[in-house]
């Protein structure tokens, strides 16, 4: 019963680390998906005195994915009622050219600033409208959300590591006597600590599989999918291969680290 309690403590500690890790991954994916969504509705408007060459503009900054010319026809149609055809033609010739610039990904405020500067270096461009204010607000909100989740995950990991270090002391005490006896009969370090490594790897596997079942269950519930749909994104909540693989690596590495600390900390009794 006592042994089961010791195992459970490590399994729960590892499980909470895996839970924090996967939560952070989901939030990160959601933010990326949301950014991809935002980029479809975001563009920069450029005003130029002369017609711009598509390739030249694309070369000016690697964030630019597409340049779409904006026709002033809609505005001119409204003016045609009060103006003669000749004047309308003259107006068309004298009007600057408008372009909508689509970007490859959702830019940071710094990237927008750099992009604006690069575009303004082109002699014919007289105005760049990046809608920076509304962009900044959205971007900062996303950043804040990501930071909050990161801090939350980190604090959970710190608390769990503190719990594990306490667990480490219990394990150290528990395995010390056996390791000492084995040492008296000439057992090499690997043999003395084999039981310890085996137990900690088993605990890591148990914690990983529990996390696997937990996230697989959550993934299968409709509620989670609906929440993402409500904000207009589609997110891989739990990838049964890559996410589970990462969980296994993290849990096994942590438990091996824990066992190694015990082995290193073991001193032969005199």
């Amino acid at each position: 019963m006592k042994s089961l309690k010791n195992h459970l403590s490590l399994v729960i500690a590892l499980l909470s680390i895996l839970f924090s890790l996967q939560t952070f991954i989901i939030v990160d994916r959601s933010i990326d998906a949301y950014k991809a969504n935002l980029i479809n509705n975001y563009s920069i408007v450029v005003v130029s005195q002369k017609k711009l060459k598509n390739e030249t503009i694309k070369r000016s900054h690697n964030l630019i994915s597409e340049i779409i010319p904006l026709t002033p026809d809609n505005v001119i149609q409204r003016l045609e009622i009060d103006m003669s055809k000749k004047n309308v033609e003259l107006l068309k010739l004298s009007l600057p050219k408008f372009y909508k610039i689509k970007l490859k990904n959702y830019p940071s405020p710094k990237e927008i600033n750099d992009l604006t500067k690069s575009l303004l270096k082109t002699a014919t461009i007289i105005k760049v409208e990046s809608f920076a204010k509304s962009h900044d607000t959205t971007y900062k909100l996303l950043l804040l959300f990501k930071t909050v989740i990161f801090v939350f995950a980190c604090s959970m990991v710190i608390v769990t590591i503190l719990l594990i270090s306490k667990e480490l002391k219990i394990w150290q005490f528990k395995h010390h006597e056996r390791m000492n006896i084995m040492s008296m009969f000439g057992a090499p370090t690997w043999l003395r600590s084999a039981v310890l490594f085996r137990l900690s790897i088993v605990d890591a596997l148990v914690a990983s599989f529990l996390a696997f079942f937990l996230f697989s269950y959550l993934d299968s519930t409709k509620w989670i999918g609906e929440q993402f749909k409500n904000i207009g994104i589609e997110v891989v909540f739990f990838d049964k291969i890559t996410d589970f693989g990462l969980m296994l690596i993290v849990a096994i590495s942590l438990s091996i680290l824990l066992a190694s600390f015990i082995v290193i900390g073991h001193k032969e009794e005199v």
Partner: protein
Amino acid sequence: MDKVIVAENLSLSYSKDETIINKVNFSIDSGSFVFITGASGSGKSTLLKSIYGALKPTNGSLVVAGVELKGVTKAKLNLLRKHTGIVFQDYKLVKEWTIEKNIMLPLIINGYDKSVTQHQVDSLLKHVRLKHQAGKYPKELSGGEQQRVAMARALAHNPVLILADEPTGNLDEYSSQLIWNLLEGANNQLKATVIVVTHHIPESMSIDYKHFNIEFGSIHEVT
């Protein structure tokens, strides 16, 4: 005759302030049976600990089976211990292992084959009259029975050197006699060197033995 232990100007201490064994010289022949006696706190167990490398010499030299223990590497010490059988006064059995597995320990460490291991353990369990207790755990056994298990473990891998620290300290007559018989047998039949730290040398000893006494940090042979 070959010397299995050679100590020259050997000093042992647990701290800088107190020397337990002070510049002693002695040697033990290979295949001999040796008793080390002395008053409580005289340094008998300390000397035994230094022989199996749990306590390094403070000064001087201690060579066991050709291995200089001052500054010995862990690998060399492990090799020496693999050929040594130790019986502790407090048995030092692994609580979470069965009697059978406890006896198997030196055989596992020495990489014996499974079938050889099982055969050897069965034979030893018979010798120490504990065949019926094989699957039990140490806490389920009496002190005498636990010491017999410790004895079987020490003999399991046919060691060349057997060290016993007050092996019959708190045992009843029956268990004590069984332990002495096993130690005599190991010395007689296996030609192992046996070193026993004890307060009293049993009168029933049927083989030749040497007797060293430790007093005030010095060791001398009692003839």
